[in-house]
């Protein structure tokens, strides 16, 4: 191997770094991490090892990744992979994420695939970097590589002094080519994979992976200095606010610019149907957006909220697909003794970020820089470039963490809003949506109606399971679908279907799931386990209804239908934590003022078939139908555990968020637009509503790690509905389980 050449950093030392942004309270930490690295010359091609990793003279390792951290701890887990494969202390690793000028394109951060797919090139690159370091040391020490080991940032011979990584390669290039596996647009959007050169460690040798390394981001988050996208500031920046139509689809007829004349520095910003305001001070922009007068056209009314589940199957069909189809349904039904058919309905829901969508854009005649909380920096970048009419290579998108979103949404919309406003006013513009913008215009988790026709035999084996769902695609807001782009015209629209029924794990001789995607009337985008929490609400509710009709305990009924050891382990672990008592029929508590109920459900979700089971205990006030969550016991299995504490944080979060969705959440709308515009109209679970929670991780060190972010949420709605079923004897067929609905069932 040839000697390392001078790095870009050395070549450009002293050339000065263009200061392009700063943060509230000081210099942006990512800028600090990349200080001295020339942004124009850094390679980002995935085929170059130097695109992924850099080591400085002090032995600090910087990982460059196109993946982003949505508040789930990805940054820390990726650093664990680097520390593990390179044998450096975790404190020596820094991570730069999602900057299109600095990081390789790794597609979207979605579908709980960060550590399954997104980490793959990180591991392969780090293992290769270690091999390069050993080779360099081998030349220096005149020893074969087989006699060297790596330890704590050093290459060590069996006797005598070793050489530090900083000394071996500090500030120089690796200059090693890697090979990419799969280069189709789908491969890239899901996340690039590298072909292995030097072998990464075997799981049995892990020392950093599998430990609860504390998250890198939490200290700054608790002292108020963390750089959220909301805190990015650019010199000469104006504050912008959007002004949305009074009805979805309305056209802007005219704007009375003089209606904001009294507000210091305020200006109307308009392009076709896109309307916004800017002002030097944020409070003035807010006031201008509130008082600006505009005329909008009338539009055809939306379907009535009360009848959405009847409307869904009658909407025009966009696509008709199967999630799975096995066996002969006719024979399955013929072999059953009990046959049931039930329809379950899941409402439109908000992602409901606590911090509304926000972005900063600095758009010039030829170039643009965008700071966004996007989950897909490269996708957002290419869309915004097209929308602005700029070459994509002239647009830099810099990801900064936003508020936890659990699905791509308004973060991208706000980036387009800011970009258009900046292009028009020729100054940098920061846009933050108001609460009513967020609740009113974020792309929603689409409503779904699901029907199951199924049968079970006398021994409690399910013989046929035929599932049909109607829903708009959960990917409408994904690409080419920024709200602002629609308003100015020319948005290419959407074409990808997602939100399909989850795989059904039960061993059933004849089963089918059919997904009919219908024309949307409200913009949609995936929300934590799209199609998963919905279909599993239906699957597991139906299993309870079949168990009841069969006179078999719901836990026993499930065990009879899944021989899979991992399924049985999560079911039994959850049942054990809760002290499950078998039952074959409804509780006899007809006279009680407070009804008690207990439900069980499980689900598999994500790459690698991660799974959870939970038992939920509730009490229900008979007079009002109000549910109190008493206890939730969840068992979770996602294969090998990378960071136990971080995983527990995800499992607890997925559990509580799922229970919140099932208990409280429903977007309301009238014939013109969404009307649930704040936290009173769209309540979520609060501290006062918390159940007692018990969690148990079931580690599988012999298995690969699999998706962790969504599997803890998929069975929540079903477990809660099954607890209500147990309490009142009738199964809820729609969500949320608000008091009026529950009372109507009692």
């Amino acid at each position: 191997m040839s000697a390392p050449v001078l790095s870009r950093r050395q070549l450009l030392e002293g050339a000065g770094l263009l200061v392009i942004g700063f943060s509230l309270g000081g210099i942006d930490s990512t800028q600090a991490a990349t200080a001295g690295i020339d942004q124009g010359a850094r390679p980002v091609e995935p085929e170059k090892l130097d695109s992924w990793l850099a080591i400085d003279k002090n032995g600090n390792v910087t990982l460059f990744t196109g993946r982003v951290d949505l508040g789930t701890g990805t940054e820390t887990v990726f650093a664990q992979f680097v520390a593990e494969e390179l044998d450096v202390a975790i404190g020596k690793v820094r991570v730069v994420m999602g900057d299109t000028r600095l990081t390789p394109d790794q597609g979207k951060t979605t579908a709980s695939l960060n550590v399954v797919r997104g980490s793959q090139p990180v591991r392969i690159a780090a293992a290769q970097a270690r091999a390069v370091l050993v080779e360099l040391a081998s030349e220096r020490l005149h020893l074969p590589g087989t006699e060297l080991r790596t330890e704590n940032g050093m290459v060590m011979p069996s006797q005598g002094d070793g050489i530090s990584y900083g000394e071996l390669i500090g500030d120089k290039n690796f200059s090693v080519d890697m090979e990419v596996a799969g280069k189709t647009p789908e491969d890239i959007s899901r996340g690039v994979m590298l072909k292995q050169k030097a072998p990464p460690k075997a799981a049995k040798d892990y020392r950093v992976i599998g430990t609860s390394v504390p998250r890198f981001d939490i200290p700054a988050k608790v002292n108020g200095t963390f750089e959220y996208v909301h805190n990015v500031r650019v010199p000469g920046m104006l504050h912008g606010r959007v002004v949305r139509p009074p009805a979805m689809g309305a056209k802007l007829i005219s704007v009375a610019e003089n209606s904001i004349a009294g507000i210091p520095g305020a200006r109307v910003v308009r392009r076709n149907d896109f309307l916004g305001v800017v002002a030097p001070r944020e409070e003035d922009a807010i006031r201008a957006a509130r008082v600006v007068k505009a005329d909008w056209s009338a539009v055809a009314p939306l379907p009535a909220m009360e009848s959405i589940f009847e409307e869904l199957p009658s909407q025009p069909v966009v696509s008709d697909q199967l999630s799975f189809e096995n066996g002969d349904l006719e024979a399955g039904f013929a072999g059953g003794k009990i046959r049931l058919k039930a329809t379950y309905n899941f409402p439109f829901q908000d992602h409901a970020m606590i911090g509304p969508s926000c972005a900063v854009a600095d758009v010039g005649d030829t170039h643009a820089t965008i700071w966004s909380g996007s989950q897909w920096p490269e996708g957002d970048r290419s869309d915004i470039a097209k929308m602005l009419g700029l070459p994509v290579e002239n647009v830099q998108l810099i990801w900064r963490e936003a508020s936890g979103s659990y699905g791509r949404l308004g973060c991208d919309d706000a980036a387009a809003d800011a970009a258009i406003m900046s292009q028009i006013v020729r100054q940098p513009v920061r846009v933050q949506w108001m609460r009513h913008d967020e609740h009113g215009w974020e792309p929603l988790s689409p409503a779904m109606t699901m029907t199951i026709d199924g049968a079970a035999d006398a021994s409690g084996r399910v013989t046929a399971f035929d599932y049909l769902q109607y829903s708009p695609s959960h990917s409408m807001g994904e690409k080419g679908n920024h709200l602002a782009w629609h308003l100015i015209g020319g948005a290419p629209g959407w074409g990808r279907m997602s939100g399909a029924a989850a795989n059904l794990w039960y061993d059933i001789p004849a089963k089918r799931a059919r997904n009919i995607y219908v024309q949307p009337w409200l913009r949609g985008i995936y929300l934590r386990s799209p199609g998963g929490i919905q279909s599993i609400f239906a699957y597991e509710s139906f299993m309870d209804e079949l168990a009841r009709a069969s006179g078999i305990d719901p836990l026993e009924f499930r065990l009879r239908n899944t021989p899979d050891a991992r399924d049985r382990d999560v079911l039994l672990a959850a049942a054990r934590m809760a002290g499950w008592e078998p039952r074959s029929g409804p509780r006899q508590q007809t006279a009680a003022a407070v009804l008690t109920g207990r439900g069980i459900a499980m689900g598999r979700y994500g790459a690698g078939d991660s799974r959870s089971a939970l038992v939920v205990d509730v009490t229900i006030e008979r007079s009002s139908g109000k549910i109190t969550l008493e206890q939730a016991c969840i068992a979770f299995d996602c294969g090998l555990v990378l960071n136990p504490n971080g995983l527990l944080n995800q499992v607890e979060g997925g559990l509580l968020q799922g229970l919140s969705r099932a208990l409280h959440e429903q977007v309301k709308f009238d014939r013109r637009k969404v009307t649930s515009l704040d936290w009173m109209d769209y309540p979520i679970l609060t501290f006062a509503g918390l159940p007692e929670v018990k969690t148990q991780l079931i580690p599988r060190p012999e298995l690969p790690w699999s998706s962790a972010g969504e599997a803890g949420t998929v069975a929540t709605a079903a477990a809660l509905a099954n607890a209500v079923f147990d309490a009142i004897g009738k199964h809820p067929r729609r969500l949320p389980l608000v008091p009026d609905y529950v009372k109507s069932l009692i």
Partner: protein
Amino acid sequence: MAASYTLHVNGQDHTVSADGETPLLYVLRNDLGLGGPKFGCGLGQCGACAVLKDGVEIRSCMTPVSAVMQSEIITTEGLGTTAAPHPLQSAFVAEQAAQCGYCISGMIIAAASLLKRNPKPSAAEIRAGMDGHLCRCGTHLRIVRAIQRAVDQGMRL
């Protein structure tokens, strides 16, 4: 009309020029460069913007700047730093009590306010006391544990 206001924030005096009706939040963030308090709803419903006014939590998104001139305002930055954290901040780190963390500044302010009026709250009292603060990530259990940890360690405010 814009006027000059002197604010006492995190132990220092700051003079700003703003309309007296301007919510304190925007002055803290945009004039004083404090990123701890966040905009969440502008309606006093979520608590992301919470700061201490003379030791008691207020919602800075709803509080006019002209109403706090005689008071001592503390934001999360004023409670402690990474090098010298406040006991609550240490407890939040020890419990890893954050995910996206957007709500966390407000949570810590609310906890400080709660512990000032009730230095030894039970877990139920913590839940009741924190109820006006929203978290979307489902970090509630850890937040309760972090406050409990600070209490158990004999935190003195």
